């Protein structure tokens, strides 16, 4: 693959990756969250595969397939099951309204760009220049986690955060060593399973998955 095509495709994948995160803030339907997360998983797998092809490290292709299966297949499937059992479809009233969320996302993107300056300057390349995308998704994920009130939306926020971190890993260093990558993926899968079960329990004990109902414990 020529450098030009590689850069072009990498940029496109990064663009889709960031856009999916932003659209999560824009949408209110929980099913859309899950769909966007799956799209983002595909983009992430594409980033991994592209860096593998570019550096002629073909074991990264296997990692990319793993990411595709986990983040575009298994995790969205688990979340759809949560949706099916809870029967809730919308993020009714986020803590910060949608317009303000979008403006915040814009500010967070600029912040990510500023914060990533030293990272890019250390080793400028098409991949590291895209590092702000990963950091922006991390920040947007954190923001989603803090401001969205449905249990599933918070889970999606956590997963956005995690996707962003994985993207940073691939863009900066073509991924972490395989044993760590394996451990991290396993942890993420288990975390989502735990969140799934807890969501079901919240639904059973509180009669809904609005996190604002969780007011038993405070000082």
């Amino acid at each position, binding site marked *: 693959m020529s450098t030009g095509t590689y850069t072009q495709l990498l940029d496109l994948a990064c663009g889709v990756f960031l*856009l999916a995160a932003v659209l999560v803030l824009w949408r209110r339907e929980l099913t859309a969250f899950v769909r966007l997360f799956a799209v983002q998983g595909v983009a992430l797998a594409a980033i991994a595969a592209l860096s593998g092809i570019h550096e002629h490290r073909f074991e990264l292709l296997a990692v990319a397939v793993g990411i595709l299966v986990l983040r575009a297949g298994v995790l969205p499937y688990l979340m759809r099951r949560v949706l099916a059992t809870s029967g809730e479809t919308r993020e009714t009233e986020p803590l910060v309204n949608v317009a303000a969320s979008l403006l915040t996302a814009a500010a967070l993107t600029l912040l990510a760009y500023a914060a990533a300056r030293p990272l890019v300057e250390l080793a400028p390349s098409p991949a590291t220049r895209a590092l702000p995308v990963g950091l922006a998704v991390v920040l947007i994920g954190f923001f989603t986690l803090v401001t969205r009130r449905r249990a599933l939306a918070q889970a999606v926020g956590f997963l956005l955060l995690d996707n962003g971190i994985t993207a940073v890993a691939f863009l900066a260093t073509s991924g972490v060593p395989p044993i760590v990558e394996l451990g991290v993926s396993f942890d993420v899968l288990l975390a989502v399973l735990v969140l799934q079960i807890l969501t079901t329990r919240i639904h059973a004990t509180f009669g809904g998955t609005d996190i604002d109902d969780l007011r038993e414990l405070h000082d």
Partner: protein
Amino acid sequence: MSAVGTVAVLAQIVVVVAGAPLLTGLMRQVRARMEGRAGAGVGQPWRDLRKLLRKQPITPVGTGPAFRLAPLLLVATTLVVAALVPLASTATPVRDSADLLVVVTLLALGTVILALAGLDTGTAFGGMGASREMTVVALVEPTILLSVVALSIPAGSTNLPTIVAHGVHDPARLASPASLLAGVALAVVTLAETGRLPVDNPSTHLELTMIHEAMILEYAGPDLALIELGAQMRLTVLLGLLTSLFVPWGIATGTAAAALPLALALFAGKVALLGAGLAAAEVFWAKMRLFKVPELLTGSFLLALLAVGASFFLPGN
């Protein structure tokens, strides 16, 4: 600049003026067919204009020059824009003036004039429409400016013909994230600027929701004809601008005379296709509640901002 360039400018103006009502007619026709109606035919907007132009001019009591001059100014600004934008050729005598910022400002000027006219009538509807329109414009303008910045970074200039020529010569640029994000953002604000669904519904007079129609409620006769023509031309020019920026193939970049007819035909075809597509999509859209409009426009603003960001951190080669 050669005579071909001058001809190109004139041809652009003629095509826009003659084609704008036809485009509107086409869009209504597509919509009618998709809704299972026969439709009035593509030429109906022209017949409406002819009917209105024959009527006696009339102005409401108490209105001033703002009301009377608005239709003329609206059409005039749009004509200038039609001359500046490289719809068919980038090698025109006015190319040095064809800055994207100038074009955007001229379009905004038309909007402001119309809002002033709406206020000038002193009626409740006029004021309401003007206030809503200004709200929308306030949200639209930053988006447009940011999209412009995003598009001008790869080309290194805000000059429209330069940007378009750059796109023609380096098509890979058009698939970059910055360009795509800016494209989506500009498409959204185009819908808002031209008062289309889902921001405004051009075919109703419902006081709860109307924006554009509320401002021009007091117009009649030839004035109304000019306003209608101006609005139709704005739609045509903006759709043409979108195609020039994002699907620039076929636009003449040189002074060869033969390229011009082809470019004009392609321009007409592209805009007709885009308009028909838009009309088809509108069948499936519902008008957005007014307080949700800022959400949509903020979203497009964010996309434009991301486009600017992406043009920095995803700069391609």
